[in-house]
Structure formats: structure tokens, C-alpha cells
């Protein structure tokens, strides 16, 4: 199984003795759209925090393309190809939509402080490249007309797309989407569901998606892991997970047709 992009094994997290994740194992193949479902408090966001480096697990490993991430800090993981969005967005509200998406591009440019203070040619060319790349991503996400709007002024639905564009600007190998449908109406959620496979193709990335919108997760994902009380209940295709007795019992109530 050397071809796995993301491999999570024996992952456990506890806060103050309270176990949030317990012996979580799964792996994601390159190019997959992988979903994680589970009710509130199942540990979905904690799982993402472990993969992106915000939370240090108490046991177990997270590996990217076979390399254990260990104690690698958040920004190094970003350079290794791990990108994520946030449930609560965390946009750079003092910047415009375009500038939000420029940040990950510009942090990858080698450029001196002095060049920036003097507005030297290297500084301007770097900014120009960042503008071009950011505009491309805004176009892809249908945000072009909002490029110069302060990011905090947009409605939540559009802010979610800015967050995704910003994550894509890091050129991720692995894109983690934390509750991308939260705050979206049915129409916007459907729109998001149509965009994800397109993004995967166009940007050659792998997507792991956490949401409690069952419709979205079961319709766009290749495989799904069901999480409950910090444990993996089952991993399988949407059809398998949808009919798994424990999943049905614990939080679907009745099977989604």
C-alpha cells in the first residue's frame, strides 16, 4: 500500500483525559474524494486538526505519501501539500478576496524585505504572478466579480468559496474540507457538490471532506468513513455506508434512499 496519499493509523487524541479519537485507521488514495461523516462531537474536526497539525495526537501516526508527519509544524505541512478549509472560515478579513488567495502564493515566493520596502522589480513581479494565479482560482470558483471586495463583506456562501480558493492556492496534494456545506442553502450545497469533482480534475488533487450533510457526502465521495464517538464505525463506498446497520442506527435514523 505504498501508493496511499494519506494514511492514518492508530490515531488517538484525548483532551484532559477525555478521549476524542480512539484507534482511528484509514487511508486515502491519490485522486480520491474521501468523506468522513458523523454526528456533532464525533471527532471529525479533531481528526482534521491532527492531519493539518493544529492538534498533536496522543498516539498513532499521520503519513503523507508514506512519510510520517510526526511533529511537523502547520506551515511546513502546508509546504508539503496539506491544505485545509475551516468550519468557521478564518478568512483574512482585512484583505480583499483576491488578496486572501494571493497570500499562499506569495509565501512561496523568495523575496526580500528590502525589495518589498523599495518596491523593487522582484517584488512587483512576484505580486503580479500572485495576482494572475489568484485570479485563475477565483475564476474557477466563480468569484471573479468579487475579487476586490473585502473578504469579510461577502455572504457566508461566497466566503466558503474564498476559503476553498485560498486552500487551493497552496497547490495542495491533499485538500481537507471542514464542513464546506455549513451555512449554505440547498442550492449552494448542490452547486458545491458539482464543483468538487471539477476541482479534483483540474487541480489534480485529493479531497477529504467532513460534513454532516449526508446528501452531499454520499453523492460526491468515492469512499466514506463513518465516525461515531471517536471511533471508525465503517469505511466503504457510499452505498455500503448508507446501508450499514450501525450507521443507520446511530445517526441516519433511516437509510437515505
Amino acid at each position: 500500500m505504498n501508493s496511499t496519499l494519506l494514511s492514518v493509523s492508530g490515531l488517538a487524541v484525548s483532551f484532559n483525559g477525555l478521549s476524542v479519537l480512539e484507534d482511528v485507521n484509514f487511508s486515502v488514495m491519490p485522486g480520491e474524494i474521501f468523506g468522513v461523516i458523523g454526528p456533532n462531537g464525533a471527532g471529525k474536526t479533531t481528526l482534521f486538526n491532527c492531519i493539518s497539525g493544529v492538534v498533536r495526537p496522543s498516539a498513532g501516526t499521520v503519513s503523507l505519501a508514506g512519510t510520517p508527519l510526526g511533529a511537523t509544524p502547520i506551515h511546513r505541512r502546508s509546504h508539503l501539500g496539506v491544505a485545509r478549509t475551516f468550519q468557521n472560515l478564518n478568512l483574512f478579513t482585512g484583505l480583499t478576496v483576491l488578496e486572501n488567495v494571493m497570500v499562499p502564493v506569495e509565501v512561496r515566493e523568495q523575496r526580500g524585505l528590502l525589495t518589498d520596502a523599495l518596491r523593487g522589480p522582484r517584488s512587483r513581479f512576484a505580486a503580479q504572478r500572485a495576482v494572475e494565479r489568484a485570479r485563475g482560482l477565483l475564476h474557477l470558483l466563480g468569484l471573479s466579480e468579487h475579487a476586490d471586495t473585502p473578504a469579510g463583506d461577502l455572504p457566508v456562501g461566497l466566503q466558503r468559496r474564498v476559503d476553498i480558493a485560498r486552500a487551493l492556492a497552496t497547490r495542495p496534494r491533499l485538500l481537507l474540507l471542514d464542513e464546506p456545506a455549513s451555512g449554505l442553502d440547498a442550492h449552494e450545497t448542490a452547486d458545491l457538490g458539482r464543483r468538487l469533482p471539477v476541482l479534483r480534475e483540474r487541480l489534480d488533487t485529493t479531497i477529504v471532506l467532513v460534513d454532516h450533510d449526508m446528501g452531499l457526502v454520499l453523492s460526491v465521495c468515492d469512499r466514506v468513513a463513518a465516525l461515531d464517538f471517536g471511533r471508525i464505525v465503517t469505511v466503504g463506498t457510499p452505498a455500503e455506508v448508507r446501508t450499514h446497520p450501525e450507521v443507520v442506527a446511530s445517526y441516519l435514523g433511516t437509510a437515505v434512499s
Partner: protein
Amino acid sequence: MNTILLLRTRLLRLSAIAAGVVLATLAVNGFGANDRRLATLAAAYGLLVLSLVVLTGFAGQVSFVQAQLAGVGALVTGWLVANMGWSFWAAAPVAVAASVIVGVVVGLPALRLQGLILGVVTLALALGFDAYLFTLGPFGKGFTLARPALPGLNLADDRITFAVCLAVLLLAALAVANLRRSGTGRLFAAVRDSEVAARTAGVDVTRLKLTAFAVSAGLAGLAGVLLALTVGSVEKQSFGLLFSVNVTAVATLMGTGMVGSAVAGGLFLAFGGQVLNLAGLDPQYFNIVLGAGLIAQLIAAPEGLLPKLGRLGSAIAAKRAPSPVIDTNPATVTP
């Protein structure tokens, strides 16, 4: 981007600065000796306010130790010139470098702390400077230094000193404005707006914060060097905690988000007492007026006076000018 156009805007900016310096110097020429001295101080204080524009306005970090960082610049200049026999022009860059190094050390707590707690820690650091570091060795007694010579310029002339200080302030302000519009400026803003999102985007937040402290300390140190130049004597009492608090208060009042606050804040700090005097009030009430102004501003215009005025100005302008008719007909829009 058109290189010729860019060169032209750059030339235009520099000419604007030169024109500003000449005009201000002509104006100061008509001042009395005391007002000339205050105008020169205003330029140096402006650099101190500018140091907070970078640190607080751009990077979102709090500091009550800016006057002490200026003190490092001034005291090191004084020590090198008065005691070690250095030329002022050799001492100045070394003094600024010393401020930068001290500033980075002062910034270390910011790697772990934020907001109020960071403010309290820098306050404690400022006290440490006042009560201990500035009393060490020759620093305690202070220094006296003569006006240095500069080929072609007579620095003994108050007007020339003023022009030099103002030019330094405006050039520094231009560099800071450039920085804000550049990639570094956007990375500062990312750290200010959301540290976790900045990290996730790949920003080395530790490095960015220390960079902000270094740039800020460099500007504060430069302010100290200018103060040593204009005042001619350096005493640790001029760089105490209360002055630090005043600088932070004035920067907040004017709005740390705007580079123009440096000029406005410098003028306010230097001429505040004078204005009170003209209004028939004792200059001792300066701190009371500042405090009351700060409270009023935090309620009415939390982003600061200058941004508020700017917004009011553009709102009035928008009301006066008829709104342009936007032609959306594709047939008449020329490419």
C-alpha cells in the same frame, strides 16, 4: 506592468516628498526657535508612531516598549559619539541595528502571547528598561553630543535639521507604505487576521512576527537617533514608560492602520502641550486630554481618527458628485 509608468510614479512620489520638505521648511522658517524645535521633535515622534503602524496596524501585535527601543537608539548613539569618539554618521546605523536586535528579543514573548497579555508583558519589559537596563554603566548619566557635520548642509541651523528629520520620516513612511502594498504586507495582515489560517496557508508566523518587531524596532531606533541629533543630549528620562504609553495612545487615536497617522501623531505629540497653552489650559493636562480623546475615539471611531475622517470625506464627496452612469450595454462599451 509598464516600467516607464512605474518609474514615473516613483519619481513623482519622491518629488512630492522633496516638495513637502521644502514647503514645510519654508513654513518652519517663519516659526520662533521653540516652535522650530517642536517641529523637529514632531518628525522624530512621527517615526515612533510609524513604528506602531507597522507593528500594530499591519501585524496586529501590541507593544508598550517603543519609547525604550528609541532610547536604545539614542543612548547607543550618545555612547558611541560622546564616549567612544565615533562619528555620528557611523554611530547612527550601529544604533539602529542595536535597536533592531533588542526589538527582536522584546518580540520573543509575542510568539506565545497575544493581545492584552502581550501588552502587559511589554509593559513589564518597559519597566525593566527604565529601572535597570538604562541605569547600567554610562547609560545612567546620559550623554551630550555636538551637532555633527554633514558636507554641504549646516546642521547647526535648526531649519536644516528639521528638513533632514522630516525627509527621513517621509522616506520611511514611503517605505512602510510600499511594504503594506507588497507581499510582506499581505503576510503581515494574514498573521494579524487569523494566525491559524496564516499557518495553514504556509506562513511561518514566528518569522513574520519577529520581522514585524524588527522593522518596528528599526523605525523606533531611528527616531531615537534623530532625537539624539536634534536635542544634542541623551537622557534615559526622555524614554520612559509614560512616554511609551503616550506614543501607543496617540497611534491608536490617529489609527494604526494608516501610514498618515505617523505625521498626525508626531504633530500631536510634539505640539499637544502648545495647543493647550494657546487654548488657555495648562500643558500638564495633555495626558487628560489624550485619555479623554482616546475614550471618545474608541467609542465613536474604533479604527482611529484618520480612517474615520477619510471615510467621512469620501462620503461627502460621493454625495456632492453625481453618481456616474454605468453603461452596461455591450454594444456601446468599447474594449
